[in-house]
C-alpha cells in the first residue's frame, strides 16, 4: 500500500474518522516507514495549534446588546403585518369592484361564445346525420377510376383507338386515363363482361394479347379510385 494512502489516513485520524482496521494498518506502517512517521510528527505539531483554537471560544463583546438587537428585530417583525399567503392575495384581488365586474363580463362572454359554438356544432351533426341517412350513395355513382397506362394511351391516341374510346367510355389525356367507376363496377360484377377486353382487344380493336396484358398490368399498378361529389373534386 502506498504512503499516499497512509498519509490520507493520518490526516483523517484526528478524531477517529478511520476504522479500527485502518488504524491497525496505519500503526504497523508507521513502525516501518520513516517518511510517514515524520509526517505524523508534523501533524501532531500542527494539531497542537488547532487544539488551542478549539479551546478558545469567541464570544460577542457585548452579548446583552446582541440579544437586545435580535429581540428588537424580532419584535419589529412581529409588529409588521404578516404577509398574506398566495391564495389570500388572489382572493383579495378578486374583491376589488373593477376586477369583479370585469371578471363577470369575461365569464359571461366565454359562456355565450361556448353556447353559440355548441348550437352550431349540434346543427352540423344533425345535417350530417340526415345526409348519412339518405338512400342515394352519390359517391358510388359519381366515382371515377384514374389510371396511367402509356401503352393504352398510345393505342387510344392512334386511329384505331377511336373505337376503344367509344366502346369503353374512356377519357384519355396526356398524363392519365379516367373511366367511370360505374362501368368498372358493372364490368367486375358481370362475369360475362370480364372477357370483354380479350374480345375487344383481340378481335374488334386488333390489339395482340401481349399488348393487352401489358395494358392490364399498367392499369392494375396505377389505378386509383377518386370521387367527385356535386361536380367538385374530393
Amino acid at each position, binding site marked *: 500500500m502506498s504512503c499516499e494512502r497512509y498519509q*490520507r489516513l493520518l*490526516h*483523517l485520524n*484526528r*478524531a477517529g*474518522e478511520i476504522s479500527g482496521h485502518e488504524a491497525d494498518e496505519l500503526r504497523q506502517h508507521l513502525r516501518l516507514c520513516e517518511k510517514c512517521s*515524520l509526517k505524523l*510528527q*508534523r*501533524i501532531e*505539531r*500542527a*494539531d497542537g*495549534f*488547532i487544539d*488551542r*483554537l*478549539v479551546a*478558545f*471560544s*469567541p*464570544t*460577542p*463583546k457585548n*452579548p446583552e446588546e*446582541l*440579544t437586545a*438587537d*435580535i*429581540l428588537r*428585530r*424580532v*419584535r419589529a*417583525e*412581529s409588529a409588521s403585518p404578516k404577509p398574506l399567503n398566495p391564495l389570500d392575495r388572489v382572493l383579495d384581488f378578486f374583491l376589488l369592484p373593477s376586477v369583479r365586474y370585469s371578471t363577470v363580463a369575461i365569464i359571461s362572454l366565454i359562456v355565450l361564445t361556448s353556447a353559440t359554438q355548441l348550437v352550431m356544432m349540434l346543427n352540423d351533426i344533425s345535417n350530417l346525420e340526415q345526409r348519412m341517412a339518405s338512400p342515394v350513395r352519390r359517391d358510388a355513382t359519381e366515382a371515377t377510376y384514374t389510371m396511367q397506362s402509356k401503352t393504352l394511351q398510345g393505342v387510344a391516341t392512334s386511329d384505331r383507338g377511336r373505337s376503344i374510346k367509344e366502346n369503353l367510355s374512356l377519357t384519355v389525356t396526356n398524363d392519365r386515363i379516367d373511366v367511370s367507376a360505374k362501368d368498372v363496377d358493372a364490368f367486375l360484377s358481370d362475369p360475362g363482361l370480364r372477357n370483354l377486353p380479350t374480345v375487344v382487344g383481340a378481335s374488334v380493336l386488333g390489339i395482340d394479347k401481349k399488348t393487352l396484358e401489358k395494358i392490364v398490368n399498367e392499369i392494375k399498378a396505377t389505378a386509383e379510385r377518386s370521387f367527385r361529389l356535386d361536380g367538385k373534386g374530393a
Partner: protein
Amino acid sequence: MREYKTDIAGSRGEVQEDVVSRSQGRDLAAFEQLVRKYQPYAFSLAMRFLCDEAEASDVVQDSFLRVWKNIDHYDPNQKFSTWLYRIVTNVCVDRFRALRRNRSIFPSRERDPMMEDLPDERDWEISLSHEQLADIVRTLSKRLSPTQRLVFTLRDLQDLTVAEVVDITGLSIGSIKTNLHYARKSIRDTLVQHYGVVRGEL
C-alpha cells in the same frame, strides 16, 4: 416534561420542550430564553467561519430572525441545536460568498496566505484576542473552498461529531471526509511551514 436533545458540542444543557413550543406560539419571552441560550454558540460558529466580529454579529441576528420566522417548521423530533446550526451555517455561507465577491474581507484565493498574520508562538500560550483568532483562521483557511472551510469549522473548531456535521450540512460522510482531508492537510502544512516541525526549529 420532555427534554430536547442538545448535545451538540459546546451547547451543553437542556432546552425544555415548552420553551420551543411557546416560541412556536409567538411567545417572545420564551424566544428570548432560546436566544440567550444559543446565541454564544451561534456567534462562536459565525466568528470562526467568517473571522470578523461585526459580520458574525450580523449573521447571528439574521439567523435568529430566520428561526423566529420559521419556527413553525421546526420538527421537535430533531435536536433544536442542529436545526439552529443549519440555519446559522446557511446564513454564514451566503454571507461568506457575498463578502468574497466584494473582496472586502477575503482577498482573492490566488494570493498566498500572509504568513506574517500568524502570531508568534508565545502568543498562543497566553490568550488570543478576537482579532488574533480572526487573523489566524483567515490565514489558515484562505486556500479552502467554502465547503472545506465549513466542514473544518464544524468538525475541528466547533468539535461536532461527523453525524452532527452530516445533519447540519446535508453532505454525505464520504464528502465530509474528503473535504476534511484537504482542509486539514492545507492547514497543517501552513502551520508547520510557519512554526516548524518541532518547537523552536525555525
